[in-house]
């Protein structure tokens, strides 16, 4: 058995827990109504097409890719807002680290405004903040990046809906079946319990799984606070007793 989630020749994925993941149709999040498939999904055991995944090397990363405070800023400038470090580990459902996982993250600025031409919120852009970054997990599945804490913002859904402060994450594992996009929320944000998008989650446990606690141990004194956010990807079966030639 391998200690990590690194692929082996015979590592099918355990099924995704559809009772835990959000449903496609969640009417309180209005956009889902016409964008949700109605037919049942077709289930089958994972094959090489789902058990393999593109490999991203650390060499593709620029020095500031995981520093959103500076990666869009003019020389000598930095983004405005509460300085934070976000760190954690990418694990699989068996608790094994997922090394080499590409993480991409994006977020609004400290005023709750995205740098996007379709964004209409009146809060101002920060000329020194682009709002995206990326990194790749180390051998122990760990990652970290530096950014500013994003602000909450209003969005057109109900008449007065606001998103809690959040950071979007896109995650690659070692198999395309693990591909995941999710959002990280911040401990103590009163908007979490009010948000229709958070509301698609089916339990308080699921909300907690996306809520990052303040982590004073990783806080840098007189510089940045830290939040810890672990990410769990689907688990891969690993056993000597799996003979795929004889059946599934």
């Amino acid at each position: 058995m391998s200690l990590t989630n690194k692929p082996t020749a015979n590592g099918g994925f355990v099924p995704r827990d559809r009772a835990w993941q959000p449903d496609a149709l969640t009417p309180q999040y209005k956009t889902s109504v016409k964008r949700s498939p109605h037919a049942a999904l077709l289930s089958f055991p994972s094959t090489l097409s789902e058990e393999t995944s593109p490999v991203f090397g650390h060499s593709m990363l620029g020095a500031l890719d995981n520093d959103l405070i500076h990666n869009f800023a003019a020389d000598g400038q930095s983004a405005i807002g509460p300085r934070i470090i976000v760190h954690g580990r990418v694990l699989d459902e068996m608790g094994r680290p997922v090394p080499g996982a590409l993480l991409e993250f994006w977020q609004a600025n400290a005023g709750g405004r995205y740098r996007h031409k379709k964004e209409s919120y009146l809060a101002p852009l920060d000329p020194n903040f682009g709002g995206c970054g990326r990194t790749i997990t180390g051998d122990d599945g760990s990652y970290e990046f530096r950014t500013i804490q994003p602000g909450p913002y209003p969005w057109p859904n109900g008449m007065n809906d606001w998103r809690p402060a959040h950071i979007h994450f896109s995650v690659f594992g070692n198999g395309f079946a693990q591909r995941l996009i999710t959002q990280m929320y911040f401990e103590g944000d009163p908007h979490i319990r009010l948000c229709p998008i958070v509301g698609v989650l089916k339990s308080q446990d699921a909300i907690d799984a996306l809520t990052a606690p303040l982590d004073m141990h990783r806080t840098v004194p007189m510089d940045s606070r830290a939040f810890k956010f672990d990410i769990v990807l689907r688990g891969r079966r690993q056993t000597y007793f799996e003979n795929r030639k004889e059946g599934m």
Partner: protein
Amino acid sequence: MVQKIDYLRESPSQTAGPYVHIGCTPNFTGIDIYGGDLGTSMKTGPVQGQEITIKGTVFDGTGTPLKDAMIEIWQPDAAGLFPSENETRGTADPNFTGWGRSPGDMNTGEFTFETVKPGGVPWPDGRIQAPHITAWIVARGINLGLHTRIYFDDEPDANAADPILTRIEHQNRIPTLLAKKTDQGAYQFDIHLQGPNETIFFDI
């Protein structure tokens, strides 16, 4: 009481939201900090096999094209080999990445992939599956990324013997999984999230 099985639970998914392009294709949105977007080109040099272009559009249940989606594809090379760490059957074409990502056209939402016709990949029992490409769709309003496959309508014999296509109960829905050949080396693959032509999506 029995012992506790202490597996972790997969992180719950949340929608990619309206600004997924900021995070995944920032250059496309005018944020040029990486020197280009990942997945824009699937070829790093001359590739083996037949080069093809796949175009398509993602439609919602009203027939409206999505302009804020992101589509990713993952496939083997022309010989059926993946450029992946756990490809044990051989070495894939070094000039082919196997992975493409498209934010769609800014005005129409149409996505385009310049790729190669994939080779066959074995089913767990050793049978060779029909040539196919794995596709993954995320967008505002999609709570959990949608997996599907792109098969090819000019592979009727391979499709008729494919272990997945033959197990589909509603055979009249199979055309939703077929890229339609529109010209030499050109295919059309539209994705319908909902409605009478709803694409077959996979629980994989």
